[in-house]
């Protein structure tokens, strides 16, 4: 509950001041961005804790040594194709949470730096993926800090209502990609 307070306060201030419409001075807009970012960060702690409870039983040996929880990061700059984890990791897990009360399918996109990737669903079944170049206008956007020039796209099908599914992504190189992935590299 305490971790929610920053976002509560941010939303209270911003809804009161119509903060997204530009009806504030520029230095106030920057301050709103700061408050909102802090709110997101504190909500991330809650999300991380909640998903950890759902994902793994306590004291699983798979948890990162020295840490109490599996790290779960959100990438707030995905809209401009910038994400530290997907761009720098050779292997990573993408967890997709569906907030609706019915099954939903969703195309997942994130920036990557490698030439080829494989995607596996929780049962280890390969998931078809596609590499797509990031539009030039996004790559050149002022303030974007990323070397990624491509996005990996896959279809997260039938996500459970108010539930999640995790996908395991690993970087490959062309020489070692199985026939299945060849059409998707």
């Amino acid at each position, binding site marked *: 509950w305490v971790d929610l307070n920053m976002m509560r306060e941010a939303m209270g201030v911003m809804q009161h001041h119509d903060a997204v419409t530009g009806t504030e001075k520029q230095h106030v807009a920057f301050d709103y961005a700061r408050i909102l970012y802090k709110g997101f960060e504190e909500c991330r702690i809650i999300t991380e804790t909640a998903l950890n409870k759902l994902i793994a039983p306590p004291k699983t040996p798979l948890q990162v040594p020295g840490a109490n929880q599996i790290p779960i990061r959100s990438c707030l700059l995905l809209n401009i194709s910038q994400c530290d984890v997907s761009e720098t990791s050779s292997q990573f897990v993408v967890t997709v949470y569906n907030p609706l009360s019915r099954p939903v399918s969703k195309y997942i996109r994130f920036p990557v730096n490698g030439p080829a990737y494989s995607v596996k669903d929780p049962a280890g079944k390969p998931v078809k993926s*596609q590499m797509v170049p990031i539009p030039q206008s996004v790559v050149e956007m002022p303030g974007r800090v990323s070397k990624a*020039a491509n996005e990996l796209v896959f279809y997260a099908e039938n996500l459970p209502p108010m539930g999640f599914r995790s996908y395991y992504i690993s970087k490959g190189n062309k020489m070692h990609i199985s026939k299945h992935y060849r059409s998707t590299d």
Partner: protein
Amino acid sequence: GRDIAMGPARFRILLDGHSGKLKSMRIDGVKFDVGQDLYYYEGDNGSNSEAADRASGAYIFRPNGTDAKRIYHQYKPITYKGDVRFRNFIFVYIEAYLLIPGDLVDEVHIKLNNWASQVWRYYKQGAVYSVELEWLVGPIPIEDQVGKEIITRFSSPLNSEGLFYTDSNGREMIERKRNFRPTWKLDLHEPVAGNYYPVTSKISIKDQSEKIEFAILTDRAQGGSSLNDGEIELMVHRRLLHDDNFGVGEALNETAYNTGLVAIGKHILTGGRIGINGTVAQAEHELAQELMLSPWIFFTPADNITFAQWT
């Protein structure tokens, strides 16, 4: 140079093979010409000496009275700077656009100029009645000392009879009639702004004779209108140079990285036959829900964890 068809069988668009611009649309078997362009209104400078002469600003949209000007495609080559080693991809590169066909998604990237671009996307699974148009606008140039309000406008021959529909706070759709108010006699002095309405998630028009609905779903609240029959327009970004005197004391001239803001977002184009196929409205409603309450995506680095360990 061949035209590009995108979209599922029930909602298909055709892009011009030379320019990449939207050319026609086929909704549930009814084909019609349709154009789409980005335009800008010039914001009124105003004197703020009285209410009738306020500048366009944060609180009010008040174009200077001239028609919206089209942002012309400059046909600048798109330079693809990515990894070009993809074996099984065909990047069809024409001077005006980049076509990326694929198993999951077809994309067409169009760069209009240094501050406006668009991406058409057709996701091949799940999309029964829709294609996606991602827009990217900004930093809006102001070197000419003119404030600009950027819109996307779709023009079609659909006979919408002066009517269009916008939602109210994401709840029910409300019928809007151009140059009209249901409860008083309207004397309209602002022919553009006076016909703009809030769009929280959807704006649509209908052709009663063809029984066709064409709708655009938004990923955020925007202003929208239909200023002529068959048209839909939505405002995507604005940068203005004068305070509208409603209290901020500053022009809506937002900056970041010492330049104007860049805005990026999505419009989902959808529609279908009215009355014949009852699932269209349901599909649109579900799409709008999925845009508003989109799944959350989280990342966990797993460089030292194998898949078997993860499971």
